[in-house]
Structures are given as C-alpha cells and as structure tokens.
C-alpha cells in the first residue's frame, strides 16, 4: 500500500476509535464489553491462579528487602524450633527418668528426693556433680544417689542448704560395697579412679566370675540399700600372686549424661 493509502487507513482507524469512544460514553458498548468479559474471564481466572501460586513460591525473590525479612524470619523460626526441640527432648528424657524413679519408689518404698543436675566437675580426679536439692529438704552426706530404675551413680559428698554435691562412682575417692550376681554372690568393693570405668576389688580368688554378670550394691554399708545396679563385669584380672581378683566394670548409667537423679533417704 502507498504512503497515501496508509495515511488514509490510519485516518479511518482513528475515526473508528473516536466512534468507539463516543459509543462507550453513550453506554452502547456495555453489551459487547460484558460479552468479552464473560468470554475471557475463565482463562484469566486460571492465569491469575497460576500467577498467585507462582508468587507464593518465588515472589520473595523479586524483593530484596522482603527476601531478607523472610530469611530472618525463617532463621528465627528455625532457632525457635530447635530450642523447642531441645526443650522437648529434655522433658522427654526427664519424664522417662522420673517414671523410672517412681517405679523404683513404688517397688522399694524408699523415700526419694528428686533433683536436677545443675553443675558438673570432671576435672582431674574429682568426678562430682552439683544438684539443686540440699540439706533443707533432707539431703545428707553419705546418702546414695540413683538414676532411673535404681542405678547407683554416686553418693552425696557435701551439702549446702539448697544444693549438694554428688561424688560419682567413677571418682577415685568413692567406695561402694557390692555383690556380683554370680552363683557365689561374690562380695567386693567398687572403686573409681579408672577413667570412665570402675573396678571391683577384694573379690576372693576362688570365686568364679563371668564377663557380663551384673554387679549390685550389697547393702553392707549404711545409707546404701541392697540391690542398686552398679554395672556389669567387662573384664576380670586374676593374678596368681594377688590375694584377691579384680573385675573391671562398665557402669549401668552413663555418668556423663545425667540429668534427673534421686537421693535415697533411708530411715
């Protein structure tokens, strides 16, 4: 088409648009506009849904400030979730420990003072923990401290009004009269000071000990009732020149992971 033809066409198009605008202001195009709206609205609803979903998924990438805020919120939420999980795990652990202690209490009728570990001291040879109950509630030096369903972990070594120190069985100053659950019911003394393991000394040489046998308290000393689990025999040392044999024990409780314990109060 020539240049003149093109100009003529655009003049006609302009005239058509003017007519359209005029008709619109008279309201004569409402029917056509409604028809077009109805015709396309379904497609646009679909595309709008797609856009909305896309924005939900990726919209934060378009706005740096929003992205950083969202990131900070995510980090804060993640930390909060972690914190709650830790609290939840601790409560579950504490709950299980308390349930076992209640079971022990029901079985033995021994009075218990539940306590929580509030401090640890594993430096050097001194292996003790601080608990949140003291002499005001009846905690006294020499009392047995158990965990779970009657597992001996140590004895009270020092008390304050509201706190006390528990000397663990792995401490080198701790000595507990014990019995091996073998056919001879061998007696001996469990001593600490050998790292994470403990030893049972003064076992008569003529008595037979098997690896894996359970060692419990013998009840031959005050404040320590009979039948508290101490550990299992992991190794036996029976030298010909020694008057007694020794047994290396693996403690029944993990002494480094204590949280809820109970002090036994014997009448």
């Amino acid at each position: 088409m020539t240049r003149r033809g093109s100009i003529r066409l655009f003049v006609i198009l302009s005239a058509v648009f003017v007519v359209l605008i005029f008709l619109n202001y008279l309201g004569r195009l409402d029917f056509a506009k409604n028809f077009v709206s109805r015709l396309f609205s379904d497609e646009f609803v679909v595309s709008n849904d797609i856009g909305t979903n896309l924005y939900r998924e990726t919209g934060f990438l378009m706005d740096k400030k929003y992205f950083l805020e969202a990131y900070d919120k995510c980090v804060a939420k993640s930390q909060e979730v972690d914190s709650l999980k830790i609290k939840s795990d601790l409560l579950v652990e504490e709950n299980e420990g308390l349930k076992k202690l209640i079971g022990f209490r029901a079985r033995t009728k021994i009075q218990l003072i539940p306590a929580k570990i509030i401090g640890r001291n594993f430096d050097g040879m001194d292996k003790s923990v601080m608990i949140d109950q003291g002499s005001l509630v009846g905690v006294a030096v020499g009392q047995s401290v158990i965990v779970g369903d009657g597992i001996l972990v140590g004895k009270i070594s020092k008390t304050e009004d509201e706190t006390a120190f528990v000397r663990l069985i792995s401490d080198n100053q701790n000595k507990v009269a014990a019995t091996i659950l073998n056919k001879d019911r061998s007696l001996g003394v469990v001593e600490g000071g050998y790292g994470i393991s403990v030893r049972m000394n003064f076992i008569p040489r003529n008595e037979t000990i098997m690896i894996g046998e359970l060692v419990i308290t013998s009840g031959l000393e005050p404040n320590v009732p009979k039948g508290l689990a101490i550990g299992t025999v992991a190794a036996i040392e029976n030298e010909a020149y020694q008057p007694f044999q020794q047994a290396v024990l693996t403690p029944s409780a993990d002494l480094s992971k204590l949280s809820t314990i109970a002090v036994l109060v014997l009448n």
Partner: protein
Amino acid sequence: MKNFIKTAVYLLITAAIFIAHYSLLNIFFFTSAEYHLILSAIVLTTAFIRKDVLLWLIIPLAFFMETFSSAPFGFICLALLLSTATIHWLLNIIFTNRSIPIIALTTAAGICIYRICFDFLIFANWFLRDQSSVFSFGTAFFDMGMELLITVFFTVVFYVIISMITRILFPRKALIFEAQSNSYGQKKYF
C-alpha cells in the same frame, strides 16, 4: 464466504494474542518486567506480512484491552493507534529492509510511544480531575525501561525464530521476502 472465514480466523488469532498477553500479565504480575506481547505481535506482523489490512485488527485488540483496563475508555485506543502508526511508518516507509537492529529499534520506538502516550493520558486525567495520586515519574520510567528491554529482546528472538522457520519451511517465500527487504541494497542479517 472466504472473506468471512478469513475475518473469523484473524479475530481468533487476535483473541489468542490478547489472551496470551493478559495471561502473561496475570502470571508475572509481581515482577516489574512486563512483556508487551501485543506490540511485539504488531511489530512481527508488520515485519513479515506487508498487508495494511491487518492493521484493522488493532480495533478488536484495543477493545479487548479497554475492556480489561481500569483506565478511562479511549486511552489504550489512542496509545495503541499511535504506536501502531509509528511501527508501520518506521517499518514500511523509513526502514524498508528487515534486520535485527531494525526490528529492535522499531519495537523500542513502539513501546516508547505507547507508554509515553498512555502514561501522559493517565497523568493528565489525574491532574485535570485534581485527584490525589501516587504517580511517580521514576517508577514510570523504570517500568517503561524494563518493559522496553524485555519486549525488544523477545521480539528479536521471535523474529529470528520465525525467520529461520520461514527459511526452512517456505524457502521460496523467504527468498522473495529477502529480495523485497533488501531492495535498497542494505545489509541483511536474516
């Protein structure tokens, strides 16, 4: 009958272009990068099909756009008419050959004319009606720049693709087209 079918087909294509344009706007509503598919289609149509009769299709296109626009009726019509006239004038009278720079330049000019005209009308409408507005020239220019870049890029991409397809599927037509395009002996790219 033949003309009726042809018109129906053209109208369907127009509706499809409009649906695609509006759907793209709907899907990527949260980005400032806006691809003006309608102006891109007008540029490509004018570049490949040298028939002025196709310009009639801007009437239904403008009507569809006006129907789904919150701007007063007529603003899009005027902006689209002016930008189409510019595109037509540039491609058929000024730059008679077809190449990537020419297509890019024409698309850019079309977008600029459309956006300036439309934004000016909107601004004038607010000003004359003494309405409070949040119109920001900075934002308007940024949006226009993004729209220009995106539209130019995709128009050029589509131009290259259509050129290649035409050359493979219709080699005779492509030869005639190239001969027409380079009738002034200018450098050709595709």
